[in-house]
């Protein structure tokens, strides 16, 4: 009698290859990733790739005021004759820094609180989640306005204000995932095997949150940059002459519609950056969904 082949194992393809294959066939993810990579590179290399890096500061060149886009000034010039293209590229730095600092604090804080609340339950859950609910009720922009009004309107304060509220979204996300994973058999298996609570939280549950966290963080980058730009537009964020996209849109708007490029083109830059992160986030979501289902 022939033996039935014991276990037919699925053909082995490396994980990296499978992920790359799915990623490369997902136009949303590829376009989003391309935009994000270009934006980050442009921000890092700004002093070397921009035509007039000195225009970042308080340079005044009245002869070149309000010049429309041309081969010399790609995005035109502003009301004191500075190159808008240069300032837009440098403005990306501030936007990305804002996203990095806000999410760099909000994601770890939100994740840890969400894990604790979701896994332990009881009073830990009650305390953490009620604080989260209260914080969720305050819109970040309003909080930033309030902070800017009490302290002084500058970059540090607006970052602090946004970060102080942003963790709530991550707490809720990780909390709900943890609640769902906590009841799964492999957590029970780890418990019967004698694993510590720390091990279960960090090694068993957290890796299962990573994909959702990546999607959420990517989407958030776009939102944080938009909120930062809104604050600057209202004059509560970055103060001149530091180039910031939101500030540039605000100051350029005084010269609409004649010198439309002064506000519209930096506005487009905000749009592209936010769009890039959103596309990347959506693409990642599609990518990970497939993996979850498999």
């Amino acid at each position, binding site marked *: *009698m*022939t*033996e*039935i082949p014991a276990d*037919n194992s699925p*053909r082995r*393809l490396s994980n990296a*290859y*499978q992920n790359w*294959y799915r990623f490369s066939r997902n136009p949303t993810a590829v376009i989003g990733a391309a935009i994000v990579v270009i934006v980050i590179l442009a921000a890092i290399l700004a002093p070397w790739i921009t035509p007039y890096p000195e225009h970042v500061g308080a340079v005044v060149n009245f002869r070149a005021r309000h010049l429309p886009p041309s081969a010399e000034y790609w995005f035109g010039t502003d009301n004191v004759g500075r190159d808008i293209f240069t300032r837009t590229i440098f403005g990306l730095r501030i936007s990305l820094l804002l996203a990095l600092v806000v999410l760099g604090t909000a994601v770890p804080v939100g994740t840890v609180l969400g894990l604790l609340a979701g896994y332990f339950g009881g009073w830990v859950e009650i305390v953490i989640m009620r604080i989260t609910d209260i914080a969720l009720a305050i819109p970040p922009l309003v909080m930033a306005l309030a902070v800017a009004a009490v302290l002084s309107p500058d970059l540090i304060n607006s970052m602090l204000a946004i970060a102080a509220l942003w963790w709530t979204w991550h707490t809720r996300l990780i909390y709900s995932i943890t609640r769902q994973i906590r009841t799964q058999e492999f957590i029970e298996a780890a418990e019967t095997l004698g694993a510590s609570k720390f091990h279960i939280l960090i090694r068993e549950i957290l890796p299962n949150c990573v994909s959702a966290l990546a999607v959420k963080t990517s989407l958030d980058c776009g939102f944080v940059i938009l909120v930062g730009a809104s604050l600057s537009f209202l004059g509560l964020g970055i103060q001149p002459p530091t180039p910031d996209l939101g500030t540039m849109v605000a100051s350029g708007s005084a010269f609409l519609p004649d010198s439309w490029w002064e506000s519209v083109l930096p506005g487009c830059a905000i749009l592209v950056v936010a769009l890039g992160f959103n596309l990347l986030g959506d693409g990642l979501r599609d990518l990970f969904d497939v993996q979850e289902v498999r």
Partner: protein
Amino acid sequence: MSQALLSVDNLSVDFSTYGQTHHVLKNVSLDVPARSQIALVGESGSGKTVTMKAIMGLLRQPPATIAGGRIFYDGRDLLTLPDKERLKLRGTAMSMVFQDPMSSLNPVFTIADQMTTILKYADRRLDRQRNGRDRLARVHEVLTQVRMRDPERVARSYPIMLSGGMRQRVLIAMALLSEPKLLIADEPGTALDVTTQAQILKLLKDLVEARGLALLMITHNLGVVRETSSYVYVMNKGQVVEHRPTAELFAAPREDYTKALIAAVPRLTGGTRFGTAEVAP
């Protein structure tokens, strides 16, 4: 060949994943004559579910492509039939009994809601005139046919108010709504307890016999094959390896694969030996 109610003729299906093509079905042929009880048995990955989906027109293309073959229902090739014509057959001339009584019903609608909706669409496809009251009457009628004691109450219930066995009966009743000639059952009752599964299988067998339906039972369980069918197709790795009357197959399997499969089933009478003899105690 063409007198069979359903006839699958040399069906081949390919799947492409990660740029590689897999031949999932290789020249599968099977016949389901009218009023017959046929089983299609195979382990996971054997291709039995893909065959069922191809018959019902539920294959997602891509990733699947039908590489060759024909599927005849009542003399008409389903694969070349216009979509609209094919849709008319689905759920009316041939119906499906789904496996999972928990996820196959929508939890936010009552049984009557779900069943009358299905009936409404079936009526529309077949240009039948029927009003809401008649549809509800038909729903009560099929619920009675699956031996529900209190069909009116069941119809008013939400799925969560019914036990697993009752939900499986509702799924069978749904398949009967439009008086099909062919029932395709995908492992009915496997999600249920043994005692409930035994009832469901008996109910299905009684219904099929009493109403003169043809049954194509798709299962991995050889015991279910023996209880419900008179003729069986054994699938392995995308091919039909053996097909014979059920009693003959169990009495004297011919193919090595079938022999091994039957030998792997533990017997209620005992005598199945586990453990490899070489291992020193």
